[in-house]
């Protein structure tokens, strides 16, 4: 088991903003995260080209998220709306960064949403995304399908904030997974636990749980970093069981390697929908 000092691993925290109200609510949380990581806060606002093209088509029109009514959207009106959203985000970002004494920037890209998000991030960035909530759909956020695609394609760490938004003062949970990717995820979890000064929980697959040596190794690995990880047996890959366990342990974040089976295809979307804690995916 390898370790390294990666306390200053994140250079930039890039948060994808969609101009909705939820972005405003989450920005403070993301700013705190950037502060903890001593990273630059970058707001990324994408003027979705697909949306602009759709608006220019004669069959275009927008169905309201709340009202369900169809209304025409002229390209000029859409442009105006995007400009207003960008201006609002600029002010909001400036105020939030000011409160936390952060370096900050707002990037505005006109591109396909997913492509823009992936293009704007580098390996040592943390991309923060957020899911649309069930309680307040008009407040914005991205669908689990969009998020699932971005999680799979990103070449940097991705944090997906769920309904409860905040990592808060809660344990960080990691899956004990084989291979280098699994180890990277474990390291990331340990790093987060250290900077947030929270407990680290490691979920052990059943077969490994029986192996006391694995448990001892994990504890020794944690001890070297000044932490005392707690191992919890976890059987199977059932999302409902996992969510129940996370809730029972009052977990604040779950760290997974990108290749983890739980993130593949529709299962990944289900996990994103069911989990309301922060999900951190390590490439």
């Amino acid at each position, binding site marked *: 088991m390898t370790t390294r000092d990666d306390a200053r691993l994140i250079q930039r925290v890039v948060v994808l903003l969609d101009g909705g109200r939820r972005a405003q609510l989450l920005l403070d949380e993301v700013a705190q995260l950037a502060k903890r990581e001593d990273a630059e806060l970058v707001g990324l606002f994408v003027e979705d080209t697909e949306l602009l093209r759709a608006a220019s088509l004669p*069959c275009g029109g927008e169905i309201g998220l709340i009202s369900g009514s169809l209304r025409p959207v002229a390209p000029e009106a859409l442009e105006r709306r995007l400009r207003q959203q960008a201006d609002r985000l600029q002010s909001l970002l400036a105020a939030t960064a000011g409160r936390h004494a952060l370096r900050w920037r707002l990037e505005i890209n006109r591109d396909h949403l997913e492509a823009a998000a992936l293009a704007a991030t580098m390996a040592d960035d943390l991309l923060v995304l957020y899911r649309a909530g069930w309680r307040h759909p008009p407040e914005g956020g991205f669908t689990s399908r969009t998020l699932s695609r971005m999680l799979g394609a990103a070449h940097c760490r991705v944090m997906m904030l769920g309904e409860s938004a905040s990592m808060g003062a809660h344990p960080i949970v990691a899956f004990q997974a084989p291979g280098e990717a699994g180890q990277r995820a474990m390291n990331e979890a340990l790093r987060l636990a250290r900077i947030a000064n929270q407990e680290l929980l490691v979920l052990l697959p059943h077969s490994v749980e029986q192996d006391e040596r694995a448990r001892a190794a994990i504890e020794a690995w944690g001890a070297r970093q000044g932490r005392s990880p707690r191992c919890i047996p976890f059987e199977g890959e059932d999302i409902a069981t996992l969510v129940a366990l996370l*809730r029972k342990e009052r977990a604040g974040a779950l760290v997974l390697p990108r290749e983890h089976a739980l993130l593949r295809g529709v299962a990944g979307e289900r996990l994103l929908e*069911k989990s309301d804690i922060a999900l951190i995916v390590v490439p």
Partner: protein
Amino acid sequence: MTGHPEPLAVDRLYRHCDPDSLDFETSDELEPLDQLIGQERALEALRFGTGIQGQGYNLFVLGPSGAGKHEIVQRFLHERSRQAPTPSDWCYLHDFKQGSHPRLIELPAGKGARFRRDLEQLVDELQHAIPATFESDEYQSRLHEIQQELGQRQSEAFREIGKEAEQDHIALIQSPNGFSFAPRNDEGEVMDVEAFQALPEERRQAIQRTIATLQEKLQRTIQQMPRWRKEVQQRIRELNEEMATASVGPLIEELRETYRDHPRVVEHVNAIQQDVTESINALISQEARSNGSMASVFSRYQANLLVDNAEQEGAPVVYEDMPTYQHLVGRVEHQVHQGALLTDFRLIRAGALHRANGGYLILDVAKVLTQPFVWESLKRALYGARVKIESLERLYSLASTVSLEPEPMPLDLKVVLIGNRMLYYLLCAHDPDFLELFKVQADLEEDVQRDTSTQRLYARLFATLAREANLKALGRDAVARLIEHASRLADDSERLSIHRRAFSDLLREADYWAAQAGSDRVTAEHVQEAIDQQVYRASRVHESMERSILRDIMLIDTAGEALGQVNGLSVIQLGGHAFGRPTRITATARPGRGGLVDIEREAKLGGNIHSKGVMILSRLLASRYAGESALSLSASLAFEQSYGMVDGDSASVAEFCALLSVLARTPLRQSLAVTGSVNQHGQVQAVGGVNEKIEGFFDICQARGLDGSHGVLLPGANVVHLMLRRDVVEAVRAERFHVYPIDSVDEAIGLLTGVAAGERDADGCFPVDTLNRRVADRLREFTDIGRQQSDGDNRRDGKSP
């Protein structure tokens, strides 16, 4: 012929109490007195009033100030209340149906405090149980499941539409505002407008139809979402209620079981359970936990124990020494919160009526009548047999703000009013409700018969008072002196005053003087010193008036003789001190038809009783001396140097003598003073304040030098009232001062003139050289003069005589 009355013997002037007749050395040897002396009538009234049931049988204890009314009533009621059952406890509770009408619950004595504790414990347990329940894994999982179900349902719906769109190469694009559909090109990107326009017309229309269909579907889906959300909210509510019932149920059940014999309590407990269930969504919200509204909701479940009789043994006896409206009927207090006045059922405060319910409430009637709205409120409570807490501003519509209207408390108590007789009779006369509500009067005696047995009881009374006040023991000589003083306070040598406060004060002051003298017991000298000091402290005005007389500023002769001038005697009461002083009364007489003029009355300085006295003596004069002929007299009477109101008829003998003197042209002895009232037959009647009057004249005469000629004439009926000062008694013993009892005006005029008054003989004439003969002759002269004048007038007017 009427003889001069003899002066009174010394033993008639003062009734001594012989210390040797008391069979103890000091008061320490005496048993304490636990009975009331001479108050059998009042005690019987108290027994009756407290024993009888029925509306309006409340009591009014009347008697003079300082008679010990409070001690008597308190002692009696405390004794009586021990035999009575202890009344209930009363609690105010929140009314969950009408928050502004707190409910009143009655519980057996002692159970109120337990109920309050049980509710406090319930609140305490709720404060822990509810958060624990709603933070539990079970609740959170179930809640999460419900929430996720909606999220999943929405996602599935969008996913289905998205999938259907993809099959037709249509993209579903989401923005913060909503969804758009757009055709994709072969590369999977959304088509731009040029590419779309380049498509064949048929293809374009097909795409538009497909998009229109998808839009309709999406619209229907979105329009269904509020209903889905509502369903979820309902399920969450049901979950919350289920969890609340599970959490609260056992706690409530325990209370229901404990108070199963008290239906109103069980009803309230059920209401609490229902309220917890209904309020649970508000209780578990993040805002409720952070802003304290949870505590506010829980506070409604507490009890305000208005009346707690847990420690009470028997019925309560409450004395309200400041019976304001709020102190009597209770009040609703308010708390200031961010500038606003807030209240709830916990701020309801009991009044004296609540505390005394089931027992006795003692009130001073003077205070009740002088405090605004109290008398009316008391009557209202007694008539309605219930007490309602209402603020005055609400009662009189001075404020229209919403406030509490607590449920009234049913009343079952006896109100005992304490006051003086005047207030009792005024209320009887002017308030028709009074006798309806206070049917029992307990009228305290002011004095009791003085005999050996009562003297013995008084000795024990003084001993008890001294003991209660931790005073030195009283020597038997002191007790004897105190008994004598009790007679003096009663203004009667055969009675003893019951003025407890005066005795208590005198005992304390005698104790002080004994301490000053270094004595370990109180003796008669210390009692006398205390009496003398009391008189001295109050005598500034008295001495000032005496000084005026001695300096001849106020003209009073105490020697020689004078025509139509006599020394009358009056009493001046200043606070607690009364003193007598002589007043010069003069008379004039001349022929005429003016009759007898009372100058005091003409000057509006004479009271009705004084006027009545003058009218009586006027009639006496006419009937005695004018016979059947008309009285031709123009006379006047005046109190010289009197500048204030004169009332009472105690000067009518003196006035009559002054009038006879001027008519008979016979001077009166100025060394004598006269008091007494006269009736139409010339009999002298008793008057008040004889001790002070005699002492007042004695002081002046003594200051000028007693020579044996000085004295006072007083009605014979007043002799029993004499309890004169020791120096007066000693002067009489030395024959330097005299007290003459008189029964008729003839005796008085005989003493004052030295001339026999004379009685009518068989012919109806007074003997020659008697005073009455002189008066009759003079009046006849006046009649002749009057007739001559009348004849002269008639001749001038041309009328025949």
